């Protein structure tokens, strides 16, 4: 996508963004509602036209083609299965529309249904299927056409939590098996982290960061990225001559002088009593205001003795109270931009 923007009347939904999707990758468009991620997907599918910019695929111009001529298929959010056709006919729809011979259709439908494990439901009508089953049919219907790019519009958002996790696993292994490029849209950052080769984080129509999950987590580009993906503590202050001054905390860092924001993940902060030797230690004392037990770990709300409120995640250790000493490594404080 080259400098693509989209405006609906007065409202600018996508602001001149460019994005490259690599062949065979699982790329997730992540963002809140209103971030423009679904609009971007629809531009690639062909249901909307970009106000400016171009979309190319495999060396050919894509945005000038109508949806039915693009080698792109979509799995819709509510599946959009044809209610008057049974599963087999739904899956065969694309092949029939393109005039494939009947024998070829029959065998490919059978194979694809087996791939999504829906072969026993071939004669059922969509309204008789559960959400998860409908989703698999929708997948089969799209994949059977062997598109160059598969678009998935929040396909798992209508499923309950356990089914969701299971479908996430299935989707991931399916993508690896089939090798088709997936462009996946979701607002759920955990889902994005679990599934993606790369994540493109969108905010108000612009790309905040495009990177692998590990990269985004460890080195968020902006304060928004740091907060949207996982949890973090944002420390604001300034750097002068290699020393970061966050008011009550100071530590050395590389970085230009001036105002700065740092992202410090809760799990980077340790109880000094339990901490092994770490490089560049930064210590502070704090009182535990709240403790939330989450099974494998504790999430502590700590008020440092100089007024800073921080979130700390430690392994489960039983109820704590009062003042404790905490420590973190200065290298875990990542300098991020306030905004784009």
């Amino acid at each position: 996508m080259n400098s693509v923007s989209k405006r609906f009347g007065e409202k600018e939904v996508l602001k001149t963004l460019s994005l490259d999707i690599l062949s065979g990758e699982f790329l997730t468009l992540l963002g809140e509602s209103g971030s423009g991620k679904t609009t971007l997907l629809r531009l690639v599918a062909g249901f909307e036209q970009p106000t400016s910019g171009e979309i190319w695929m495999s060396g050919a111009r894509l945005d000038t083609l109508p949806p039915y001529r693009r080698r792109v298929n979509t799995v819709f959010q509510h599946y959009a299965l044809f209610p008057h056709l049974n599963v087999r006919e739904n899956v065969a729809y694309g092949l029939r529309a393109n005039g494939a011979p009947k024998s070829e259709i029959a065998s490919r439908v059978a194979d694809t249904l087996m791939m999504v494990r829906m072969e026993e439901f071939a004669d059922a009508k969509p309204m008789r299927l559960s959400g998860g089953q409908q989703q698999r049919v929708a997948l089969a219907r799209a994949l059977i056409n062997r598109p160059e790019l598969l678009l998935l519009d929040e396909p798992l958002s209508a499923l309950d939590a356990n089914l969701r996790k299971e479908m996430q696993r299935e989707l991931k292994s399916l993508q690896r098996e089939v090798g088709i490029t997936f462009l996946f849209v979701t607002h759920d950052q955990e889902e994005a982290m679990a599934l993606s080769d790369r994540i493109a984080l969108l905010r108000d129509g612009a790309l905040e960061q495009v990177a692998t999950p590990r990269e985004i987590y460890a080195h968020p580009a902006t304060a928004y990225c740091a907060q949207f993906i996982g949890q973090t503590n944002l420390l604001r202050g300034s750097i002068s001559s290699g020393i970061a001054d966050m008011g009550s905390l100071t530590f050395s860092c590389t970085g230009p002088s001036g105002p700065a924001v740092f992202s410090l993940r809760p799990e980077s902060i340790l109880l000094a009593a339990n901490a092994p030797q770490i490089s560049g230690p930064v210590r502070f004392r704090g009182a535990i205001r709240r403790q939330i037990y989450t099974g494998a770990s504790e999430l502590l709300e700590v008020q440092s003795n100089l007024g800073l409120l921080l979130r700390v995640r430690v392994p489960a250790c039983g109820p704590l109270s009062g003042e404790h000493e905490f420590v973190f490594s200065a290298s875990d404080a990542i300098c991020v931009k306030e905004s784009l």
Partner: protein
Amino acid sequence: MSASANTRRSPFLAVYSALVFAFIYLPIVVLVVYSFNRDGVGGFPPQHFTFDWYSRLFADSSIWDSVLNSLIVAAGAVGLSLTFGLLAALALDRTDFPGKGIFRRLVLLPLILPGIITGLSLLMFVVFVRLQLSLVTVFLGHGTALISVATIELFAGLQKMDRRQEEASLDLGATPWQTFWRVTLPNLKLSLIAAGLLIFTLSMDEIAVTFFLIGRDNTLPLEIWGRLRRGITPEINAISTLILLVSILLIVIWYRLRMRSEAQ
């Protein structure tokens, strides 16, 4: 949803639709235009604009007598249809009894049954019970034919209503009777008004059933019908134009009500 500009929008369809619209409106336009034509109906082009026909219309007392009769019958039909239609809608929505399916089909039958059948069957009934043909029999005919309209509209309104409001009312100590008046009916207000307007209009225009149940007093459509048999005069264009204007007024009212209900 904005359609992709790539999917060609054939202008042919738009032109065709415009032609269909023209076909639907042509007679109405002709009617209105020629009600102002001095030389009467027919010929082309119309010349000599005049209000003559309208003034003759206003002096015509038998027309206005029939209008009054129609209004009386229509008011009665609205009352009767809404009452029985509401009960029927409630029965269909909330009760179950053997033969409910047949009951439902019978209630809705007059909608699609040609008016002549409804009219004739009622005529035979009226003769059987030795009732005189009059506005009363017309009123009974309209009521019977139009209960189905009320039932459909009110049933739809009941379905859209949130049942839990009634449950809340009962939970808070109101009796079923109070619940009906304070919760159910207000929720149906818009359906009742819409149904009422529709029944009123249909009753004012009803001919087929009325044809066989009419006594000495004419309703407006039958008065017009009688004159048509005797010959065409633009006076009829004039009254038709007036009817059109009233209908449009009623539509605007109905439209405003629907907009308000949707805003809620």
